[in-house]
């Protein structure tokens, strides 16, 4: 047997198990990457926790782990996603996001420059959304036990309004306002996945929603419920809300915004765009008397420029979602059993 390559190519600077050992290498990761990039007094203290000022008698608390592949996709990356995702969950509770934690699970072999890009994105996403990344953790897992980077962010926020904003507040007659066209995130990620590659100029809808929500609430718009559309797409989010609220929703297919790119990709892969993932879209349940105000405010935000009313809450009490399609027929929307797989027929 003869070895082809007498010496391995010089490896770039990468994550090694030692970076997760809690020793000198971990310390350097903290002082050379995390602290200067996140740059606030809490991470500078390098404690295992942050002690924060709090001036409210309620606290909204949420968590999400981000495990996306590829780490960088058209229109975003895992770092942005991790900040926006948690910020959005707080915004959806009607809260102003205040503080975020950042816990990294790094796979041995990750280039340090990739980590740096992701952390810089997180810092800039935090700045955009007005939150601080105040506490964190870093673990390193062996090669083949991770996928580059997994990020968990948890977040705390304060309520913006005294009115509760959740599924139980949904009322018959509420209009359902969708903030923009659906499916961009899922399709733009799929477009760069091995085997399904296609050409498109599509970018993910990945965006922070707290600004738009704050504008609506501060303008006095009464919002009964907010929900961001994530993994299961528009359909799954609405089915969940129908169940939690014990109300029926009726949607008009023709009013649901959809880009030509998302349509094309869904056609060739046999996917239903209503079940494709989003990362910067939400639905708001608005009583009719606020409907003009709400849409005019949302239209003037970056994330809501293409918003539309897509349906309303039905008088009937059945907790279900009916889609009235372009042919005039009524279809029941349900959760998919598992992931949506590309079909051949």
């Amino acid at each position, binding site marked *: 047997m003869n070895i082809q390559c007498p010496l391995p190519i010089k490896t770039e600077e990468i994550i090694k198990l030692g970076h997760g050992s809690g020793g000198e290498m971990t310390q350097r990761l903290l002082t050379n990457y995390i602290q200067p990039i996140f740059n606030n007094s809490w991470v500078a203290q390098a404690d295992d926790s942050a002690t924060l000022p709090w001036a409210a008698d309620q606290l909204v608390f949420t968590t999400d782990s981000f495990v996306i592949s590829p780490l960088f996709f058209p229109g975003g990356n895992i770092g942005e996603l991790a900040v926006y995702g948690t910020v959005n969950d707080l915004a959806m509770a009607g809260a102003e996001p205040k503080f975020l934690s950042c816990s990294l699970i790094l796979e041995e072999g990750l280039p340090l420059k990739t980590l740096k890009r992701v952390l810089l994105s997180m810092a800039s996403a935090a700045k955009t959304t007005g939150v601080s990344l105040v506490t964190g953790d870093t673990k390193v897992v062996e090669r083949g036990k991770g996928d580059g980077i997994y990020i968990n962010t948890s977040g705390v926020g304060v309520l913006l309004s005294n009115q509760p904003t959740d599924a139980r507040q949904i009322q018959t007659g509420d209009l359902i306002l969708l903030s923009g066209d659906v499916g961009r995130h899922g399709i733009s990620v799929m477009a760069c996945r091995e085997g399904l590659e296609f050409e498109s100029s599509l970018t993910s809808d990945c965006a922070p929603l707290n600004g738009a929500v704050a504008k609506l609430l501060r303008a006095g718009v009464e919002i009964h419920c907010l929900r961001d559309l994530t993994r299961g797409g528009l359909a799954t989010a609405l089915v969940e809300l129908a169940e939690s609220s014990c109300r029926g929703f009726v949607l008009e297919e023709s009013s649901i915004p959809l880009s030509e*790119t998302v349509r094309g990709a869904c*056609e060739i892969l046999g996917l239903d765009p209503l079940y494709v993932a989003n990362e910067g879209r939400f639905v708001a349940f608005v009583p009719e008397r606020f409907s003009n105000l709400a849409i005019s405010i949302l239209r003037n935000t970056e994330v809501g420029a293409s918003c539309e009313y897509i349906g309303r809450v039905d008088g009937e009490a059945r907790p279900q979602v009916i889609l009235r399609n372009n042919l005039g027929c009524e279809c029941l929307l349900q959760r998919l059993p598992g992931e949506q797989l590309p079909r051949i027929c």
Partner: protein
Amino acid sequence: MCLGVPGVVEKIIGNSPLERIGKVRFGGIAREINLSLVPDAQVGDYVIVHVGIAISQIQKTEAELVFHYLDALKDPDSAERS
């Protein structure tokens, strides 16, 4: 069975036997498609694609027949189709 999606040929890329390859556009996206079984399809033509392979070329004139018929239906006298 057999999901078939119409797309327009934007470019012919390769032309070896079994590997006549073209870029085909479907709405907002484009993809490389094997055009070996539609040797007459040229740039601008529409083809029906199934699992990455074009299985037939769309006939423009024939495609319009149904709409002529339907448009004619407006006129209650011409409801019968040839």
